[in-house]
């Protein structure tokens, strides 16, 4: 109903700044307590890992057998020492670098390549879709751990091979989600409306598809981070990832395993670290999912 606007509304008023969707998400994230705590904790851990050379009181490779398996709270070694007498705190700090690197890199790689491949497969359909999806189905048939072990087992131990095998593990999962979400979004009415107005492929992809597809892809990727870290450490635990004498949480868990009969709690420390990081990422992922939700 077009009624003449009352005078107060016709007075010039500055238009409200349009809140972009991403700014809205950031604001929601900043307001959730669990997300804030998890985020700060994670930030602190990552910072500590990055600054390990500066923060670590000892050389992670240096140890004396005399001091082996000192319990937590020993003077000079607040977190004890491992089976070769090396300082646990230092090794945990340096180990964090390895574990986080090995766990996060594959996820970033898989998200980038998997996202692009999945969106392409979903948008183009037809032959391109079949090729990409059938190929990724073959890898998807293997459970994550098995595939990681198979590939690492074939390639041999080492950080590089771990990165390769974990990337191969997570790539098909992300492709699957990206394709499904793209196909679903493509068929929504607002995309049809855009076509009906004469929009070409690129504007549709840029304005309608990507913003609505990136959100679910990012949320899904964030749920996989903790698994990636657990697997990366797990590979080293099995001897397939980082090799001694390097420090890495999974590797430390393995080498300390025999020592549980001497001191139960020092060997548990690397696992605690993995657990805390994993939990923090899961809390963040939950927060991200809630923040990205389109309510109503």
């Amino acid at each position, binding site marked *: 109903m077009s009624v003449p606007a009352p005078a107060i509304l016709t007075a010039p008023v500055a238009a409200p700044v349009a809140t972009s969707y991403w700014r809205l998400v950031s604001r929601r994230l900043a307001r959730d307590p669990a997300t804030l705590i998890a985020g700060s904790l994670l930030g602190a851990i990552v910072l500590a890992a990055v600054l390990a050379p500066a923060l670590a009181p000892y050389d992670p490779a240096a140890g004396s057998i005399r001091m082996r398996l000192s319990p937590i709270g020993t003077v000079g070694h607040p977190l004890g020492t491992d089976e070769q007498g090396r300082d646990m705190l230092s090794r945990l700090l340096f180990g964090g670098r390895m574990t986080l690197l090995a766990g996060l890199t594959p996820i970033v790689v898989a998200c980038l390549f998997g996202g692009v491949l999945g969106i392409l497969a979903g948008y183009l359909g037809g032959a391109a879709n079949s090729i990409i999806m059938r190929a990724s189905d073959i890898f998807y048939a293997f459970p994550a751990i098995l595939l990681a072990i198979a590939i690492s*087992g074939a390639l041999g131990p080492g950080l590089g091979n771990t990165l390769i095998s974990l990337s191969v593990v997570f790539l098909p999962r992300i492709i699957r989600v990206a394709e499904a979400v793209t196909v679903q979004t493509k068929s929504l009415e607002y995309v049809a409306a855009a076509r009906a107005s004469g929009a070409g492929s690129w504007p549709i992809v840029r304005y309608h598809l990507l913003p609505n597809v990136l959100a679910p892809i990012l949320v899904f990727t964030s749920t996989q981070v903790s698994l990636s870290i657990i697997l990366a450490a797990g590979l080293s635990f099995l001897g397939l990832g980082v090799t001694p004498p390097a420090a890495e949480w999974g590797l430390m*868990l393995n080498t300390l395993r025999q020592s549980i009969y001497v001191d139960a709690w020092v060997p548990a420390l690397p696992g605690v670290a993995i657990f805390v990081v994993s939990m923090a990422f899961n809390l963040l992922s939950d927060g991200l999912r809630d923040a990205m939700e389109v309510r109503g």
Partner: protein
Amino acid sequence: MWSLVLRRLLLTLPTLLGASLIVFAMVKLAPGDPISILMPPDAGKAEIEAVKEALGLDRPLPVQYLKWLERAVVHGDLGRSIATRRPVVQDVLDALRNSVILAVASSMLALIPGLALGTLAAFQRGGVVDKVVSAVAITGVSVPHYWAGIMLVIVFSVQLGWFPAMGGPSDPGIGPYIRHMLLPAVALALIPLGVITRVVRSAVLDILAQEFVLTLRVKGLYTGSLVRHVLKNASPQILTVMGLQFGFALGGSVLVETVFSWPGTGYLLNIAIFQRDMPLLQGIILVLSTTFVLLNLAVDVLQSLIDPRIVRG
């Protein structure tokens, strides 16, 4: 319905073939020469050639692949383990049996509490119970299961001495078997428990929000039949996640089996990798991947049966 099953089965064939190709290729690509493991270091060239020919390693790769595939699928012969000289298929199937038992046990330990807790949390949404359950669930999902295994050993074997720390059942009988299996099953069940609880809670919440449920509640049909009704509607989602988690338990048992030296496929896989025992490695991965493809197929078909609205493929 049968056309659906047939169709899905046909679609899995390329996947299976592809998987077998990857298994074959992977081993061939691996650094290290299987011959050098078998032969003494001073073996002459003629001897090496003879062994190569005997093992069929001098033929072109596609031929090797086809012969290997034919032997495996038609004759059920996966070769002999280089280390033990025993037929691979026998060892793998024995190990598979142990792994399946462990996977089933841990899945039960995950599913039953997961269903109960998830449903409870959904019905008590926002309350203390819900918050506690959600906290438990997210903890479960974040636990590295191999670490959990070590912790369980520390607490229940080393400190308390209630359960054995290692190995498969050495004494016959159900009792000892269960005693050996309990700790690994619990360790393996933690992540699935977390996942199932969260999925069940979310699925039940979705259904509770639907109008027809409100109608039931208004009519006074509370608990009992309401819960049954809700679970029936949530079953497709729950079934999917169950299938995935069972797959996780079966495949992911590697790490837990290593901690407990449980004689399953994971344990065997570990041995095969470190001894570079190619036939054994190939055999394990081929059997496991076939198992998983069939498992996924079963879950898909079961889902379509329960909820005819889901049309796959």
